[in-house]
């Protein structure tokens, strides 16, 4: 298990993405799959960093813990994001209507939607005052 904890601020996005995606280059993940993992992780991180602690007092610790493991048999990557911010289940978020023309579209919602599309599986639970989001992808 590989693990990193960072402050929930946007300047840490690149650091976490590198932590997760660099090992994938050594595995059977092709360029396209790595882009999918990268995009999904960036969208998840940005959501947490932008909203999870929006109402928290400034002296409170605002961190995200990220763990990943790569299963030996399936060579699948499982990434878990944990934060102690306000409870938010992205799976309950309504999907945007992607058939709408530009003028009828409202911004937003696409990050979570693309995460669902690009990853093989996404699970959410709220446990011990923590949001725990786990995403999985095979090469």
């Amino acid at each position: 298990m590989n693990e990193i904890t960072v402050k929930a601020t946007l300047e840490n996005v690149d650091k976490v993405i590198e932590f997760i995606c660099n090992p994938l280059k050594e595995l059977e993940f092709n360029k396209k799959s790595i882009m999918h993992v990268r995009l999904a992780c960036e969208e998840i991180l940005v959501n947490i960093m932008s909203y999870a602690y929006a109402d928290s007092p400034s002296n409170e610790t605002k961190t995200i813990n990220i763990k990943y493991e790569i299963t030996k048999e399936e060579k699948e990557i499982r990434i878990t994001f944990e934060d102690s911010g306000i409870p938010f289940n992205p799976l309950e978020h309504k999907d945007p209507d992607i058939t709408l023309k530009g003028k009828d579209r409202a911004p937003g919602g696409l990050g979570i939607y693309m995460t669902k599309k690009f990853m093989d599986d996404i699970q959410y639970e709220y446990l011990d005052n923590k949001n725990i989001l786990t995403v999985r992808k095979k090469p």
Partner: protein
Amino acid sequence: MLDIVKRSENGIGVIELSGELDTTSSVNFQKEIEGFLDNLTDLTIDMKNLEYITSAGLRVLLLIDQTMEDQGSFKVINVNEDVMDVFEVSGFSEVLDIQ
């Protein structure tokens, strides 16, 4: 990192994007185009060297599309495979005029 090169003449504008249009660089991109779109009747965004785009980038493209809808024409050219992948999954392949 995102490089933005933009020029306009007689209402025709071209923007060349190189690098990555992610959460951070999209903020800069939006600032760069404020004012630039005024008085344009034709806009082309050349994405030949754009390698990556996130929902934040799509958000700015939607803003441009909606602005240009009232002003004239807007097209996107030279889209690479990874960026097209994102356009397709988000439905932007139908929103934008991609050539």
